[in-house]
């Protein structure tokens, strides 16, 4: 749809935690892809973490995924957290009234560099 929309997703397992590292744009055109990666990562994970540091753009469809996952985590008894993205991405969380949600955000582990 959008010529510039590209998203690559990587699912890493660290113990019983699954980390989805997203790189690129999360919008209407890449939504299905992102949703599929979450479905995969969620399987058997005690906690699910989405790393947004390499995301260049996100729109409300991305936020929708986050809110959906929050709801699912509350029902399914696993932990869900997000590693903050760039200012533009974080602005979206701010607009959605989620920037101050301390349960939602997690600091990146020290041993994983920004461009890991």
């Amino acid at each position, binding site marked *: *749809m*959008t*010529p*510039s*929309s590209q998203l690559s997703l990587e699912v890493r397992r660290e113990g019983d935690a699954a980390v989805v590292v997203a790189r690129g744009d999360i*919008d*209407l*055109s890449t939504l299905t892809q992102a949703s599929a990666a979450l479905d995969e990562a969620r399987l058997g994970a005690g906690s699910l973490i989405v790393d947004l540091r390499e995301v260049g*753009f996100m*729109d*409300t*469809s991305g*936020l*929708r995924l986050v*809110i*959906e996952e929050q*709801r699912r985590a509350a029902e399914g008894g696993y932990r869900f957290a997000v590693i903050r993205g760039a200012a*533009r991405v974080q*602005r979206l969380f*701010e*607009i*959605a*009234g*989620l*920037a101050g949600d301390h349960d939602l955000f997690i600091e990146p582990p020290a041993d994983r560099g920004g461009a890991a």
Partner: protein
Amino acid sequence: MTAGSEHDRLALLASVNEVTDGRVLLGETVARLLEFVVPAFADVATLDTISPRGELTRIGSRVQGPGREELERGLLHRRPVASAPVGLPRALSSGQGQLIERMAEEHLRAIAADEADYELLRALELRSMVDVPLLARGRIVGALACGVGPSGREYGPEDLRFAEVLSARLALALDNAGLSAAVSGLEQRLEATLTNLAEAVLVRDPAGPLVFANQAAAGLLGLDSVEDVVAASAEQLMELFNVFDERGRKLSLEELPSARAARGMPAQPLLVRNVIRSTGEERWLLHKATPVLDAEGALSMVVSVIEDLTEVKRAELAQRLLAEAGQALSSSLDYEQTLQQVAELTVPGLADWCAVAMRGDERLELVAAAHVDPKQAELGRAVGRDIAAYLGERAATAAVIAHRRARVIAELDDALLSRAGLRGELLKRVNELGLGSLILMPLAAPGQAAIGVLVLAMAQSGRRFDQSDVRLVRELGHRVAIAVENARLYSERSQIATTLQRSLLPPELPDIPGFRLAGSYHAAGEHNDVGGDFYDAFEVPGGWMVVVGDVAGRGAEAAALTSLSRYTLRTAGRLLGDPLAAFQELNAALRERESLSLVSVCCVLLRSEEGDGARADVILAGHPPAFHVRGGTPTPVGVFAPFLGAYELGGWQAMSTELAVADQLVLYTDGVIDTVGEQERFGEERLVATLAEGGEEASAANTVARIERAVKRFALGPQVDDMAIIVVERTGRG
């Protein structure tokens, strides 16, 4: 003591001349020349040529006496040492003949490249040597080396002079032989080239007869042999074909480039469609003709080159037809009009006549027809109707409809027509139209039932359809079927979408006393996707509410949510007069839905105050801030809070701002700030900058227009999200 008598020497020189007269190949000349030199003048002789770059090539050697063959071979492969101070290298470097009257050990050592070479030279048992350069046209072209020994002869200064005379003759002989070899080679090569050329080449005498034709010409003209081609007159050849130009106009012999060139007229290359009358086989030929003038400037012959462009031209036609058909098919939803365009595209490139019939409830109906000859268009339509009716009556059994099987008829004949049960008027009309080769192609998307038939036929051109035509028509049939199906679906869906959208948007913004409203709404996509954005403006107790919202997602689900959101906010707002209460209502309604339903809203409650001022309460739910613009300075308004539908408790808050006269409040959806540009998104910063550009004079309407312009300028590619903008301007006490 000199080698040979005076008489012998004259005879030798004469022989050399003889050799040069004949047209013989270089290798033969060398062998014969050396035969004259050895034994008449020498016991051992070698000939070298020298290239303009100074490279020596030994082209011949001759030895007489025992061990001759081995010695000759050895000498032939010998490469003289360029740096040797005596002998042949010296002759070449100085351009002067060299005489060694008495060969000594030191001479051999100086000449020899190595031990083996030394042994070879020693085996020759040379007593004297002369080495002379061969000079032709002022340039050293080679060298002659002669030696005597076994025969008991010796060379003296006189022998050197003779060798120089001999070498001059030899040089001439070699030069001539080389040149004549090149000349005869050129002729041979030319003939070989013409014969094997892929293009047809015909050479015609101005008086008429063909003097040359190559194999390709025979093949291209569909004749068995080159002799058949040469034997035929131009008129006879022309009789074998129907020749048309690219537009389908029949050409006469006089119009072909070769005929024009023969009359001394300029002859531009001409692309023709050549149909072999006997077989209906079609070829695209590029005719080129060049007049060849003799020394007096009179026409001596006409050379025609005919290139077979059939493959290229057909591929091009096929591609163009499919591309243009695709364009026509996607340009309009009126598929009858579109099919008429497609039918017209097929003539004359693909066929002489084309008809398209579509399946109605019970029968087939002609929806389009085209004929190469406009005068026969009416007849063409009539026959199209006939065939549609004919197939329609047999729809259940006709393979083309029932089994989606293409029918290709190489040539319609009386037997076939009577077997098909054609009689009366129909038969008369079919004959009148002169239909020959015929294709009946089902219009069917892959895996779908046939929705009609595409009929293509040849008439006056006399062509016959071949396999590549059938492939092309099948492809065309697929595309037409898919396009027609899509058009039907599209118009149905589009109707639903338009109806829905109409119900979602207010027909126009109301007049609110004391305010002026301007807005715009752009749905992403053409007609089909009901937008996820909505806006509304309505009166509530104590003031007016203006709402701009965005529903996540697209399509029917989003449309349902949009409708729910808009009407819940309107109803709750009107009843309760409080945006926060309306938000809670909508939040509850959304939470009741099975799947996560998120709506972002920016709601403004407008209330006129004492004097000209007004108060605006802005409440946001998952929505970017509104902007209050005063004197060209935008200020964000609103407290960020969650989407409606996300959580049970939202914590939405109103933020108040005072609107003075000419102040504006700008509401928008994220379609504006998320617009994709070349590098990044439009973003809030650009929106702020755009609002600031308006200065103090801006009205609500031109603020909307300015935002639209800025977004349009910035956007790269098509709009992917809906975009709604509402600007509220305070005009004073209403």
